[in-house]
């Protein structure tokens, strides 16, 4: 089963929740956690494991061959991202804008834009207790998160069979990287906080998940602050609120030290248990 933890708003607790849920469930089940927030991965601050694998990650971009180019301009007409541009008697490629879709390369009548690889980031795999943890990291200066997220998802699919519960920690927001991180999920957990900001961005995330036709449930973090609007909204919309993680200064202190929360806070562990039961009922997974 593939489960993605996402949120509209940043800072609602995706990483705290994902790392705790992953470590908690790994005590009983085969679990792999992947941090797909490749622009600023931070799950590794809370999952202290031993590195078992590292590899460079590459994306494909076109390179202009001026010797065969006929300057027809087909490439720049095709490119949706303005990553290929004909200027006078030359064609310029902007690697940062390129999404690696191959359109210009494949449709060039003169084969003047062969694809070649450039390094975009690194993938690392760790073992922490019973948990397998994967962290992909975009290189500084790289602007496209989607190709790295896509390749990281492929890596996990290739290396972990269906006996694994696959947890994915998505980037915040509702942009392309979030869509890539959620589009193959069997279930999406949207984590929010009970504040006006939390509700506003939750609505955007829900709209996105509905557009993608994803099954999703909501987890409310920092329950106790703000107001009841998130709960009222979910009730009105018939959305399952799976758990309410307590607001507790002790949790923030543990977080600030890079420690897991559930071993120290019984109410937090109890909420993870509820979530775990729900996931396992969806999955029908055996321990």
């Amino acid at each position, binding site marked *: 089963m593939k489960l993605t933890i996402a949120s509209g708003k940043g800072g609602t607790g995706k990483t705290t929740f994902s790392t705790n849920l992953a470590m908690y469930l790994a005590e009983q089940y085969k679990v792999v956690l992947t941090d797909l927030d490749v622009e600023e991965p931070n799950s590794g601050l809370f999952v202290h494991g031993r590195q078992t694998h590292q590899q460079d990650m590459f994306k494909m971009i076109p390179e202009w061959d001026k010797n065969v180019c006929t300057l027809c301009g087909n490439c720049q007409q095709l490119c949706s*991202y*303005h990553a290929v541009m004909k*200027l*006078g008697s030359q064609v*310029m490629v*902007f690697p*940062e804008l390129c999404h690696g879709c191959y359109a210009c390369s494949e449709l060039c009548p003169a084969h003047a834009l062969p694809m070649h690889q450039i390094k975009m980031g690194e993938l690392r795999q760790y073992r922490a207790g019973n948990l397998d943890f994967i962290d992909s990291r975009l290189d500084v200066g790289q602007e496209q998160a989607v190709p790295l997220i896509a390749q990281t998802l492929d890596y996990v699919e290739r290396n972990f069979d269906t006996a694994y519960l696959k947890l994915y920690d998505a980037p915040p927001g509702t942009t392309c990287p979030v869509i890539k991180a959620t589009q193959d999920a069997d279930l999406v957990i949207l984590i929010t906080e009970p504040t006006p900001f939390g509700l506003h961005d939750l609505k955007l995330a829900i709209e996105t998940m509905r557009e993608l036709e994803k099954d999703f449930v909501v987890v409310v973090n920092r329950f106790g602050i703000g107001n009841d609007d998130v709960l009222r909204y979910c009730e009105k919309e018939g959305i399952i609120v799976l758990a309410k993680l307590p607001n507790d200064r002790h949790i923030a202190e543990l977080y600030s030290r890079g420690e897991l929360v559930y071993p120290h806070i019984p109410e937090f562990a109890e909420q993870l248990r509820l979530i775990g039961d729900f996931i396992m009922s969806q999955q029908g997974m055996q321990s």
Partner: protein
Amino acid sequence: MKIAFTAKGTGWDSPIDPRLGRTEYILLYDEDKDELSVTDNREIEGVAHGAGPKTAQLLFDINPDVLITGNGPGDNAAVVLKQIPMKIYVGAGELTVKTALEAYKNNELKEF
């Protein structure tokens, strides 16, 4: 000499658009003919990626001697603009096209 402006409108009293990539209009003042012409760039609003190079390409086609703008080009646009033998002056973001031209004539704008 031909002087281009990034602008939010089509006339001399229009404010300079401080953005280069997403400028609404490019105005071109042909000093020799004393004519102001307008290129509408408003379709850039719907462009999610690569606005900088796209507008820079437009400037490549317009081929002015001088560009007067506000914030200056980003990295991608700058790569394109390097292909044009054009001087870029920045810091006119708070001015109108008319006052920006005066500021340029008085050497009050900074070359990018």
